[in-house]
């Protein structure tokens, strides 16, 4: 199991039922059990820690508001439901397009004939992910880590399936380059 899930502590059926009835202590239990998961997911998609914190807050407000309508008692189903809300809130931030993507600047430099300064630069995975555009980073994370299909991503982002596929392919090409991996010629 990847580290991003390590913070999820188990909630029993009774705790979920109490949270569904609106018990504030049980709702805090849900928050404590899932805050790490939600924040990690938000932090991987959003560019700044502040945005990720806002996503965390908005996600749990939505959870408190809607948990009564949540159909299911198994913790696994609750995890999936909360992560879906978190991904949706994070993607909403990406769609707002608050920042100019660094990747776009990089593409502009390439188009202008200037050599990109990061060619053959070895970065660690965190740095490389941070360098991707918000959209590309979201697609990579949702597809490769969260296990979303391209259809799911297209649906969540309001884009086409081919958009999701091309974003993923381009992102992997860039990651490979930034991570200093050699390209195997076919």
């Amino acid at each position, binding site marked *: 199991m*990847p*580290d*991003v*899930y*390590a*913070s999820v502590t188990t909630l029993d059926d009774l705790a979920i039922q109490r949270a569904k009835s*609106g018990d*504030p202590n049980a*709702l*805090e239990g849900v*928050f*404590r059990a899932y*805050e*790490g*998961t939600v*924040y*990690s997911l938000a*932090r*991987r998609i959003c560019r700044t*820690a502040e945005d*990720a*914190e806002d996503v*965390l*807050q908005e996600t*749990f*407000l939505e959870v*408190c*508001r809607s948990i009564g309508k949540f159909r299911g008692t198994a913790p696994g189903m609750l995890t999936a439901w909360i992560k879906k809300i978190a991904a949706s809130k994070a993607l909403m931030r990406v769609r707002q397009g608050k920042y100019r993507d660094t990747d776009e600047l990089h593409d502009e430099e390439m188009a202008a004939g200037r050599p990109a300064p990061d060619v053959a630069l070895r970065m660690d*995975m*965190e740095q490389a*992910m941070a360098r991707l555009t918000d959209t590309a980073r979201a697609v*990579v*994370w949702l597809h*490769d*880590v969260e296990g979303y299909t391209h259809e799911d991503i297209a649906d969540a982002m309001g884009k086409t399936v081919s958009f999701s596929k091309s974003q993923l392919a381009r992102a*992997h090409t860039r*990651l*490979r380059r930034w*991570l200093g*991996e050699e390209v*195997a*010629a*076919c």
Partner: protein
Amino acid sequence: MECAACRTELERLEQRVARLKALPAQRAPRDRWPVVREAMVSERRRTSWLRLAWGGVAAAAAVVLVMGVQNAQQRQVLAVREQALNALMQRSQQLDATLKDVSDARRVWSGREAGAVVQLEDSLSVLDSRLARRVERQPSQDLVNLWKQRVQVMDALVGVHVTRASYVGL
């Protein structure tokens, strides 16, 4: 996979994904639960106030509706009553006119007929005096019943006069 280069590429992709999944979990720098709890409490308070306000509005609307329906029903009853009263008064006037016509003729009454006529005329005068005392802004069912009785008595009185007139060949 046949091609060695593609196999290598796939392995690298899988390694990259594994590295992504192995990225450490992150913790929010600040505890956000107090903010979430506060927002949730104020939202619930607002919702319950709204529910209360809407409940009040709905109750008031229901009262107005019930009163409106009752008023409409009452107006309908009054209209029907007024219509009936007008018809009875008109019929009463017609009978008055008929009685005047038939009672002008001179005739001889038997004792039994004279008794019946006196009894009917007494009833009529009692009814007329009761009707004269009634001053009503809206017609009551009681008033309608009085007029109905008057018409019945008048009918009977006219009946006695007409029967006698036919009998004597007038």
